[in-house]
């Protein structure tokens, strides 16, 4: 039985880490293994962390509007490293017009301000691949 392992990261220049930290603690309380990277992580560093930690998922917190640059790069690197099965979640301020762009590159889990924590937990438990032998 293996617990869900998730890397929580804060990419870009922004330092507003309240959301990332609250999510990290909540997911830990929900029984997941949480690896928090800290601030100003490049997509390369985030993917390295996911690889090293054998993560099932990556959660990035972006409030600054840099998602259009960060997310495509992140998805491309995951593909290059053979980590296409790692689920990517984005939390923060994502304008409605950008949501289809993120969906198109394979990011479905987009969680805007005011999202109940349970819906993030549910999303993860429903989407992390079944062959990783999750807890019941």
């Amino acid at each position, binding site marked *: 039985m293996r617990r869900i392992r998730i890397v929580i990261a804060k990419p*870009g220049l922004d*330092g*507003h880490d309240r959301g990332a*930290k609250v999510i990290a603690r909540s997911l830990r309380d929900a029984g997941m293994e949480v690896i928090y990277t800290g601030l100003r992580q490049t997509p390369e560093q985030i993917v390295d962390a996911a690889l090293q930690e054998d993560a099932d998922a990556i959660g990035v917190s972006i409030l*600054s*509007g840099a998602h259009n*640059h960060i997310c495509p790069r992140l998805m491309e690197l995951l593909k290059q490293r053979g980590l296409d099965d790692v689920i990517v979640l984005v939390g923060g*301020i994502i304008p409605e017009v950008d949501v289809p762009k993120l969906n198109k590159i394979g990011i479905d889990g987009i969680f*805007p*301000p005011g999202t109940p924590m349970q819906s993030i937990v549910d999303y993860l438990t429903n989407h992390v691949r079944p062959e990783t032998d999750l807890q019941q």
Partner: protein
Amino acid sequence: MKKTVKSPAASSKREFTTVSGHSVNELYSEVDIGDVDYASDLSGPGKYPFTRGIHEAGYGGKLWTMRQFAGFGSPEETNARYKELQAAGGTGLSVAFDLPTLMGRDPDHDLSLGEVGKCGVNVSSVVDMERLFDGVALDQVTTSMTINSPAAIIFAMYLVVAERQGVPWDALSGTIQNDILKEYIAQKEYIYPPKPSMRLVTDVFSFCADRVPRWNTISVSGYHIREAGSTALQELAFTLRDGIEYIQYGVDAGISVDRFAPRVSFFFNAHNDFFEEIAKYRAARKLWANVMRERFGARSDRSLKLRFHAQTAGVSLTAQQPYNNVVRTSIQALASVIGGTNSLHTNSLDEALALPSRDAALLALRTQQLIAHESGVPEVTDPFGGSFFLERLTRDLEIGALEYFEKIDQFGGMVEAIEQGFPQSEIANSAFRFQQEIESGERSLVGVNEHIEDKSETPFETLYIDEAVAERQVAALQEVKSKRDSMQVIAALDAVRMAAEGTQNLMDPLLEAVRAHATLGEICDSLRDVWGEYEEAAFL
């Protein structure tokens, strides 16, 4: 904080707390304020300890400054917004810079990718600064600039723009935020380690005392601490303790306290809990007056008076049912006015979604104008003074803040407390507790955990900043670089490095570098060469 006296009505079984978790009774009476003495704890407005306000006439002499924080895209776009806000009755300018500028990076740097002009205006040289204030006579406005780690450099750019307009520096007034401690504590836009960063701050103190005497050299900020999740008490305590740290560093740098303390200003949040916020501002004035007189031996009345700007709580606004945000902002703004704010920014209803649109920004300004001119509230100074409840809250916040001061003193000071992660973990714990209360429904957020509507589209258009801004700013940067004398730039940057290695005031070499059209990124890099960069340990 435990109450020492039981109120006769404190028998209700339901437990109420303020938004910050301070317990609240259903009714307050005389017995609740047995420890409050009018003459020594309150006194009149304009009289020590200034609990009831710093001006004897309250707002009778002058209303607060209506200072709407704005900045997005290129300097031209932001300049146009300033002119709209001024035309609509705004009475002060306030610059929001983008993340590359806040972090001392030029728009063509790798780390600036996707961030240029997004959260504020992009400024990388004095040429951008001239574009930002085009058509704005700097002796006719007061300007606040929200910039911290590179504050001294951005301030130097402003001074050079004044120089080029022919405006003498002693005719300038405004505020540079320049509060690096709250960056380590809360907002995390730091570049250098704490010690050299503090030197930049005290260099600005002494430079302005000599040459820009009407400028507020710092805005010690609780706003960001609160937004990061602190309670009202923590906001109050950490902000004032930061203030103490700056005064101590200034004194240690050899500046006499009454020369620079009058130009130290503050910046607080205006959150949802109406009475607790009013109490917070009153307690802040009293604590500061006392600290300045007793701890630092300040003699000038101007050193004792805490002047502050307030901004309504961005974090309290919701993406769901965004029109509700107008109401939240009105209540918060009203609390800050009753609390005697000297300057105010009211948030726009769309701020949980994007940077404010023009219409949303105007409505936010109108909110202040309605309070100022229609509500009658500003006519009476400290109108709730003497209220059993408010005086109890004010006193409790004061006592709680003094306890925090003691704890932080035990670390050896705020810089040391930050290095040990103390204020950071206090805030993270409060933020987590608040979120749990929202999740459990213990605390209500209308439209989010109660009175929810089915998800619908945002009912208005929001501001969208596209990537063309970055391209234009990079092109403008290249033009600046192609037209300048590169030998002069190299010499100026060398002088900055040398000054950073030594102990001379950095402002003059920074001004020379700015005049030579060295860029923000280049100047910050010169300082990085000498001081290195600060990295925070990642902890939850």
